């Protein structure tokens, strides 16, 4: 059973606040924790502060000094320079990054709650339905029971999906398009991330597609597919992917419309060379969970070539090359100058 956690915000602009509240709906399907917004700063389990404002910076510093139980999240264009323990949500506000930060926050909170339970401390700021114990981290194989798994397994087909509210979305997988009347992109993301059992699937042909989509405009499937894949991934590989497999990119995902996450950009460049998960983790010094989430998202977009390891044939991972420090220093200075 998912824990219900509350999030508040300080010094955020009105538009960011509205966006935040909309994005929080994406956590509804999470098996670990769902988040809702509250104006009650003191009651919230986590607090997002706009650290690019003077007031925000001071408030953050003060709260860090006080050492409260709240998880603090700095919303900022800077990624470094914050005290340890403060999570960083990069500017501008994007759903994928918010979900990633909220996942980290919920882990922190649930771990802290578990410790308190073991030591018999009073309950913290969690609210849950019925169970005092945090639920176990969702098994990534949950994806196998989600709509996204069905879509991934049928990359060359046209699928008509009807949800439990009888709303219809037609997925033209090969051309990465979808057609729907009345559902927003977020609704489609929810549908893709939802359990497969609650929807009805039907494969249709191109003539039926033409007749059913006469008055409908095709929409780009990649953003909702990517977001949903990242949201449900939870650091566990999707069906068909192996932790010992060798992965290579066969087409470059359009990261410009998929969030422009710097880690994803780096992973994409690495994936073009090919390698195993351990190699990507070592190179990026990131978490295995983030790498796996990214691989899952690439899988959903069908831009991944997979070579699973056979016992007799070890996977050939490229030798990590000694970085040309002069060149890296130059690139770093170029980035700094251009602000990228």
């Amino acid at each position, binding site marked *: 059973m998912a824990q219900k956690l509350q999030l508040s915000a300080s010094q955020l602009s009105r538009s960011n606040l509205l966006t935040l509240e909309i994005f929080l709906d994406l956590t509804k399907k999470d098996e670990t924790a769902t988040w809702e917004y509250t104006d009650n700063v003191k009651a919230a389990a986590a607090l997002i502060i706009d650290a690019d404002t003077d007031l925000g910076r001071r408030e953050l510093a003060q709260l860090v000094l006080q050492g409260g139980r709240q998880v603090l999240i700095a919303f900022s264009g800077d990624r470094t320079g914050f005290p340890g323990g403060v999570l960083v949500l990069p500017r501008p506000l994007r759903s994928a990054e918010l979900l990633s930060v909220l996942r980290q926050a919920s882990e922190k909170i649930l771990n802290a709650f578990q410790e308190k339970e073991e030591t018999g401390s009073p309950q913290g700021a969690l609210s849950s339905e019925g169970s005092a114990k945090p639920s176990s981290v969702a098994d990534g194989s949950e994806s196998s029971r989600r709509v996204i798994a069905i879509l991934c397994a049928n990359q060359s087909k046209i699928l008509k999906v009807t949800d439990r509210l009888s709303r219809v979305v037609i997925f033209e997988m090969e051309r990465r398009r979808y057609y729907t009347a009345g559902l927003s992109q977020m609704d489609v993301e929810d549908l893709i991330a939802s359990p497969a059992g609650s929807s009805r699937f039907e494969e249709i042909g191109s003539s039926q597609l033409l007749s059913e989509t006469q008055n409908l405009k095709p929409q780009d499937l990649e953003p909702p597919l990517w977001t949903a894949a990242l949201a449900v991934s939870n650091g566990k590989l999707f069906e068909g992917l192996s932790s010992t497999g060798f992965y290579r990119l066969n087409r470059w995902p359009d990261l410009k419309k998929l969030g422009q996450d710097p880690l994803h950009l780096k992973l994409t*460049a690495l994936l073009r060379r090919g390698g195993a998960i351990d190699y990507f983790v070592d190179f990026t010094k990131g978490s295995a969970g983030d790498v796996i989430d990214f691989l899952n998202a690439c899988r959903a977009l069908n831009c991944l070539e997979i070579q699973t390891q056979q016992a007799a044939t070890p996977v050939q991972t490229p030798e990590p090359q000694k970085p040309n420090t002069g060149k890296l220093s130059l690139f770093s200075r170029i980035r700094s100058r251009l602000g990228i």
Partner: protein
Amino acid sequence: MKQIKFIFTGPPGAGKTTAIAAISEFPPVSTDVFSTDGLAAVKEKTTVAMDFGQITLDNGQKIGLYGTPGQQRFKFMWDILVQGGLGLIVLVDNRRADPLKDLGIYLDNFAEFIKSTDVVIGVTCSDLKETPSIDDYQNYLQARNQVFPVFAIDARNKADVLFLLDTLLTCLEIS
């Protein structure tokens, strides 16, 4: 100190000069002259030698931003301009009759340079003409057994141009 540079190339009218102007610290030096052939129907002027822009790093080092002429009769300039280049940015105008073919020509002509550095592809004017889509470009590259970043951009938009450079730098850092 040896000058280092990024090269912007692509067919005439794709937005090379504009893209350089978007990020250069001074208005680019251009060598534009009046078009006297069919291009005049599309553009009054065309680059016949190069565009030159620049950014200066904090240690004083200069990074050149060079735009090549678009027409293939100026290929001799392409060969001169790529010498010492860090990487290539190909801009393709989606309004042209066959932008995929255009892309192929530039990838072929700069193949050696791309092999030793890297390339990123920006598709301009895709808001004015939707096909081919970015997906089509990726299919085209896949058919050529190539995997390169391709994005729809507005060459006038600094953020878009910086995104291209960011991607190119990431590729260069990894390689």
